[in-house]
């Protein structure tokens, strides 16, 4: 029984940890897509954020500076996507693909410049702290490696991600800015006739999506692991995108979807750690198979923002 509770704690804790990068990035997806701009460049933004975060944390010695660098890096790529999609009416999926070339390209280019030709950074001196340890001292609040410790004593980024879900939810549904953003995603022409600047709102939303994806990358490179490498992100941005859709374009829905994907991963890691003779590759497939099965089941019943992917050109009025 005791070991079962310990195992459960391990699975839940791992789930929380591996879900965090997805949560940040999926929130970015929610923000941009609710404003009507598709962003499949989340992957590239996350990739670049992971690098910028690790590099920032390595050179400054502070994970918080790393986090800031990641947000900034993701935001810059967000700006590129915004310029293309909002100002120049680019096909949004194509622009996203371009970002998926630019993000990894820039990350690896700079990595080779800074880290002696290597496509991975050196280990950061300080990972994201565990705030409970910081506040109460290690092993003081919960017994070390007990259930409570495994579940609740997590990196700062984990708490931040959950907090951000609340913030984004509140901003979207309870504030003026959020209402305008949703209106722009549903009917930009209507918003325009009321004097709301579609351009400004979409720029803000797309740049913010980059910032969140960048944070997601850093939550990977300076919390889950402690360095950036060229295969670190591989596909997480895409999974976050799927989670956002599965979560019906809502922050709270995206959170649940990310936790579901995370739990599949957590379970895989657990079985791996236990040495259970199940082929790892088959287990690794599970989250993806699950996504397809779930999308087949739910997609007909979800409604994306109406103006999503549609180019808004004032000249066409």
């Amino acid at each position, binding site marked *: 029984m005791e070991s079962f509770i310990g195992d459960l704690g391990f699975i839940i804790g791992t789930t929380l940890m591996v879900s965090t990068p997805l949560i940040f990035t999926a929130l970015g997806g929610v923000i941009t897509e609710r404003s009507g701009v598709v962003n499949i460049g989340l992957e590239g933004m996350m990739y670049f954020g992971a690098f910028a975060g690790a590099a920032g944390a390595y050179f400054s010695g502070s994970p918080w500076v790393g986090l800031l660098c990641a947000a900034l890096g993701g935001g810059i790529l967000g700006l590129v996507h915004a310029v293309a999609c909002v100002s*120049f009416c680019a*096909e949004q999926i194509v622009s996203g693909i371009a970002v998926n070339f630019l993000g990894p390209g820039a990350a690896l280019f700079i990595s080779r410049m800074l880290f002696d030709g290597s496509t991975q950074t050196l280990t950061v001196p300080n990972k994201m702290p565990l705030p409970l340890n910081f506040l109460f001292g290690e092993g003081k609040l919960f017994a070390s490696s007990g259930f409570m410790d495994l579940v609740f004593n997590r990196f700062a980024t984990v708490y931040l991600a959950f907090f951000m879900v609340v913030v984004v939810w509140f901003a979207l549904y309870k504030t003026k800015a959020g209402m305008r953003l949703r209106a722009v995603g549903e009917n930009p022409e209507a918003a325009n006739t009321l004097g709301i600047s579609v351009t400004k709102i979409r720029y803000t939303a797309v740049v913010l999506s980059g910032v969140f994806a960048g944070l997601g990358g850093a939550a990977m490179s300076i919390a889950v692991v402690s360095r950036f490498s060229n295969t670190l992100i591989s596909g997480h941005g895409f999974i976050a*995108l799927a989670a956002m859709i599965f979560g019906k374009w809502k922050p709270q829905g995206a959170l649940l979807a990310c936790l579901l994907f995370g739990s599949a991963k957590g379970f895989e890691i657990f079985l791996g750690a236990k040495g259970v003779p199940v082929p790892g590759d088959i287990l690794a497939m599970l989250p993806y198979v699950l996504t397809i099965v779930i999308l087949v089941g739910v997609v007909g019943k979800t409604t994306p923002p109406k103006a999503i992917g549609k180019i808004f050109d004032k000249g066409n009025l």
Partner: protein
Amino acid sequence: MKVDGPGLEKIFSNGSLGLTMVAVILGFLVGAVVLLVAGFNPLEAYMAILKGIFSKPKYMSYVIIYSTPLIITGLSVAFALRTGLFNIGAEGQYIVGAMTAAMAGYFFHLPMVVHVLVCVILAALAAGMWGGIAGYIKARFGVHEVISTIMLNWIALYLSNWAVTLKSFGKQGTGKSYAIRETARIDLFGEWKITEPGIEFMRSHSFLGDILKSPVNIGILVAIILAVLVWIVLNKTTLGYELRAVGFNPHAAEYAGINVNQSIITSMVISGGLAGTAGALQVLGVSHRIAKLAAMEGYGFDGIAVSLIGNNTGPGSVLAGFLFGGLKYGGSKIQDVVGAPTEVINIMVGTIILFVAMPGLIRLLLGFKKR
């Protein structure tokens, strides 16, 4: 992301050769600026790329070998796009094709030409099915193909990795499968090259010998034939007419009695089959086996770039495939020659795609009026 044809038609109506050329030039300019900022001489770097492509017959041969799978995955993406479908899944379909070809090449004992044909056909069928899954769940359940193919890519990757762990197929401990049989290989003079007269020939004929140092194979011929076939099917046949009608306006196609759902599935099967063929040719002609993949190899994603740069046509994909293959192979040289990171190539390609997506910006830069 049930995007109802987000103006995909724009992609193919807006593109013209002129705009694409300008985008390519701008890509090189941005690459030069990046190199300059990083403290390298862009001219030296670009010279290194050019030398890396043209200075030896062997290099050119390698560029062709690099370009072959890119041309075909480019054709795959372009074909689906003309039906209004964004096949992000060429990557996974390529993997399925490679895996199938590697299995058929190893497990079957067949005579020479037949073995190759069987490998390619089985690979195309399997990858076609893989693409068809995405087509089917789009047609039947409305799941957007961008999302489903992204998921299928990862499933394909793990499936392939799992296959390599099988005792009967994978060499245990190496992370690689057994090599395919000689009868299934399509590289030219592969066996003969390592025989005594072969070595002698290569030593005495410097030009041909140099070319033969690379794994020369007939893949490029297949790629060009496929490009012509894609062009014919799209423009000269009733099937192409139907698929393009669905791509431009599914509602009107439905009105005209065209079976839209069937067209979506057909298009994805053909697109998948093409990507699978690319994977098969790579195994039969170059790698002869598959290996455990830590991450995506990117043939499918690069195919998207090739298709977009090539304006989503057959001939365009061939040209863009060579451009991309040249950059990839030649670009790998700049690390040694000038010390600049090869990833500048990715930045250039990303920039080219970005500019291709913004014809408005290019017209603005060139001083054309907006309308």
